[in-house]
């Protein structure tokens, strides 16, 4: 097994993909705490379906740069979904369900009607559940992912204190002069970026797991916003590393393996939380 791993890692390309994978898991987890606490977990899920639909359309239209279409489309939907989630009489969950299922269905339909690929089922499957192997990532995807994840991390660090204020008590923050609408918009844009980033990698159906599992696990054990944030980032990185290594060694799909590692990690934290009495 060690030999297989060593063989894989002798290719520089595998090393890059590994680094990018860890970076994506890391930045997905950063916003997870805010999303879970703001009761926005479902938005991540809805957006991933939107990204799938956008990808299908981009494929059909034969855009030379698919990212250039998928990213703005997903960001637009993120903004719309966050709008419906606030200050309206009907909460946003129905709107999210509608948009996400609609995008999924239309995406699949479009792919089905127009695809010239001989392996349609395989194409759909890898869009939904991620690449079967990290080797199928292209070089552009790797660089794009690296740059975007650095941007997410920088934004998060710079706005950490504001995100806390907006997450803990939006009304107070707004009343005392914080531009909460702008920060909600920022959150939406960053989620959209993360989702588009992670889609190539774990697939659109599994992205939410990268966002919410680390945060939920950390909240079982830790009690301050800062420690929960740090813990969920470490949790995400450890699970991503384990998941990637196992997937190479056992030749399992990358995305699903990482999510399985996240699930296992969550249960460990859940047990620790009960043992320490921090999880009530």
């Amino acid at each position, binding site marked *: 097994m060690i030999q297989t791993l060593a063989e894989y890692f002798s290719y520089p390309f595998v090393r890059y993909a590994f680094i990018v994978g860890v970076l994506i898991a890391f930045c997905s987890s950063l916003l997870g705490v805010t999303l879970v606490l703001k009761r926005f977990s479902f938005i991540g899920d809805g957006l991933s379906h939107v990204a799938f639909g956008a990808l299908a359309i981009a494929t059909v239209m034969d855009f030379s740069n698919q990212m250039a279409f998928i990213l703005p489309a997903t960001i637009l939907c993120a903004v719309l979904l966050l709008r419906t989630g606030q200050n309206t009489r009907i909460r946003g969950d129905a709107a999210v369900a509608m948009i996400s299922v609609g995008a999924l269905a239309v995406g699949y339909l479009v792919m089905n009607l127009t695809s010239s690929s001989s392996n349609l089922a395989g194409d759909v499957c890898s869009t939904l559940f991620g690449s079967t192997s990290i080797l199928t990532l292209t070089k552009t995807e790797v660089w794009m992912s690296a740059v975007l994840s650095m941007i997410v991390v920088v934004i998060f*660090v710079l706005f950490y204190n504001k995100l806390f204020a907006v*997450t803990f008590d939006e*009304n*107070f923050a707004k009343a*005392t002069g914080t531009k909460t609408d702008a920060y909600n918009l920022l959150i939406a844009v960053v989620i959209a970026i993360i989702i588009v980033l992670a889609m190539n990698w774990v697939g659109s159906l599994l992205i939410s797991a990268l966002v919410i599992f680390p945060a939920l696990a950390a909240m079982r054990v830790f009690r301050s916003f800062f420690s929960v944030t740090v813990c969920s980032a470490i949790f995400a990185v450890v699970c991503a590393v384990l998941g990637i290594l196992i997937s190479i060694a056992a030749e399992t799909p990358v995305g699903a393996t990482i999510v399985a590692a996240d699930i296992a990690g969550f249960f460990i934290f859940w047990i620790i939380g009960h043992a320490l009495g921090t999880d009530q």
Partner: protein
Amino acid sequence: MAQLSCSDLTLGFGDNILIRDLNFEIQEGDYLCIVGENGSGKSTLIRALLGLVQPEGGAVVFGDGLKQSEIGYLPQQTVVQRDFPATVREIVLSGCQGSMGLRPFYRAAEKKRAAENMEKLGITGLAKRCYRDLSGGQQQRVLLARALCATEKLILLDEPVSGLDPMVTAEMYRMIADLNREGISIIMISHDIGAAVRYASHILHIGETVFFGTKEEYARSDLGNRYLHFEAANAAEREDRGGGIRPAGENAAGKGEEK
């Protein structure tokens, strides 16, 4: 000039007007209590004062160097906060956020301000504790300390004693009165007319009929008379029935002050 004045303020959504042509003002050092039945528009009025909703008509005008964003606000607790992993210190510090603009990190001055306000409200010992592990009264102190970080002039409290037991209620009222004596103006929404008349300098009663004036004027007015008698009768009845449990109204507050 008044710190805050409402002129012909009309609030509501579309056809559903809650408050029509409301006029009142707050001078520096005033203690205004807003009373009224559920659904009379108290919360909407608060949201309008804070700039969270736009009035349908009229205006909220700020003066005396007070800006809208310099109101300290003690909101009612939300569901999100009940299981939020955050320490007392993190929450109190976040009160300084409004004055920071785009600056990403807290400076020493803000940390000092948070520490002073925690000291003032007697929660320095809780600084590292998790907010959700605290008692209701302690949580209110934390939110009050946060509000103090956001203001030096005016604090707006939305039902600060709801859900607190009588002892803690009395202590909360005493703490608010202390802040008022230090020169901070207070606007408080309350169901507790007895305590309102005891502590406040001015009363704003909204509902079918609207009253604004000093508490002495209120006690003399027909409206005030009716409500105060009703409240007193209620309190007496609760005392007869409950025995051990003191009402959270005038009596409990009075007891707190006698000590």
